[in-house]
């Protein structure tokens, strides 16, 4: 077809129109597709439920609970002074993902360790929250799926997990209530 047309102005204009049509078609198809993809992202009601409040009063020292947040467990542990101390005296050089215990808790509330209870390896729930569950070699948590050991600050110490247990965004509303998210 192209070779049956004479070259020159007509040729350029024709190429421009084809190019413009193809470009507009592409842009149109892509922008029409985006809403369908974006609809799979969290909806407004899902986002609205993205924070929870937890009552801390029933958690005795040395105990921990699990709360549901965004469909995942959050570990809330009331640490003993010994647990805090053992977490704080570990030298940074020994850690796989170096981070101080102070960075993982709120000042003045050092006993409260709040973590997303999802192993950073492949997403299993580590054991060690309920009493009687194995807490691993470092007294924190132990992931049974592939053997990751976390310490009393929730930091990865041994096993395949690359990162410390994630600390969610949270704030204390009062001495006995915390808002996660």
């Amino acid at each position, binding site marked *: *077809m192209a070779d*049956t*047309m004479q070259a020159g102005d007509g040729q350029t204009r*024709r190429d421009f*129109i*084809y190019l*413009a*049509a193809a470009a*507009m*078609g592409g842009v*149109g198809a892509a*922008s029409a597709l985006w809403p369908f993809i974006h609809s799979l992202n969290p909806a*407004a*009601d899902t986002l*609205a*439920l993205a924070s929870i409040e937890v009552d801390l009063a029933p958690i005795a020292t040395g105990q921990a609970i699990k709360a549901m947040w965004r469909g995942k467990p959050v570990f809330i542990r009331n640490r003993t002074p010994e647990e805090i101390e053992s977490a704080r005296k570990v030298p940074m050089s020994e850690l796989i993902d170096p981070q101080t215990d102070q960075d993982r808790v709120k000042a003045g509330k050092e006993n409260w360790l709040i973590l997303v209870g999802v192993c950073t390896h492949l997403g299993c729930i580590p054991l060690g929250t309920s009493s009687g569950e194995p807490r691993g070699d470092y007294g924190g948590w132990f992931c049974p799926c592939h053997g990751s050991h976390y310490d009393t600050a929730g930091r990865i110490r041994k096993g395949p997990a690359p990162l410390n247990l994630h600390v969610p965004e949270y704030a204390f509303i009062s001495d006995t209530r915390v808002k996660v998210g």
Partner: protein
Amino acid sequence: MRRLRNLIAAGVLSVAGLTAGAQAAGDVAVPPAQEWAHGGVNSFLSFFKGYDYAAVQRGFQVYKEVCAACHSMHLLHYRNLHDVGFNEEEVKAIAASVEVTDGPNDQGEMFTRPGLPADKFKSPFANKQAAAAANGGKAPPDLSLIVKARSHFEDYVYAILTGYEEAPADAHIPPGGNYNKYFPGHAIAMPMPLFENGVTFTDGTKATVPQMAHDVVTFLAWAAEPKLEERRRVGIMAITFLVVFAGIMYAAKRRVWADAH
């Protein structure tokens, strides 16, 4: 060909018009058309119109203080009030003013707590049966979609709210019923809901019955079609794009066909 095309167009249009026509049937007075800042949820030629949010906010106050005693709006959440201009603190305060039932807690018991923005509008009755029992056997309809769920849309709801009259002598209104000019059959179970100064608007607007009816219907229109403005905005963009694209496709098609004739 041209004639044929016109015939087809006329056919399609007349068939399409039927559904709208069918809705208008009935022996009741047709609700007069009112002026709406947003043009109406089903209005076609309101490309650039949006809600009057001052009216929506006043309408919410009317709903809360008058309608909510009997009518639920279970598809709305308190968080939705952000979209009509209430700020975060106001939304929290409005939500916290109701007690919602939550649970079960760790003891397996239901408990109440102050409402949160993520909660649904609290319904006045626990369930449909309770609503019916408390209202002479007929549950007041949920208002979340009422504007879209009645033919004549906003105009109908406005007409009902302002259509209470002395029953004519020949009207048969059963006990417990009320005469309404625009209600199918005229005998409506709902007593006249709006009275002069029935609410005190926080923005100082005088609370006449037409004013309150207008405001609450604007609120209900927003509740039924909250995405109206986004819809029209995207529509303008989409159709502008398609018209330009059609022009370019026409030019491309002409070019291609230039050597075929």
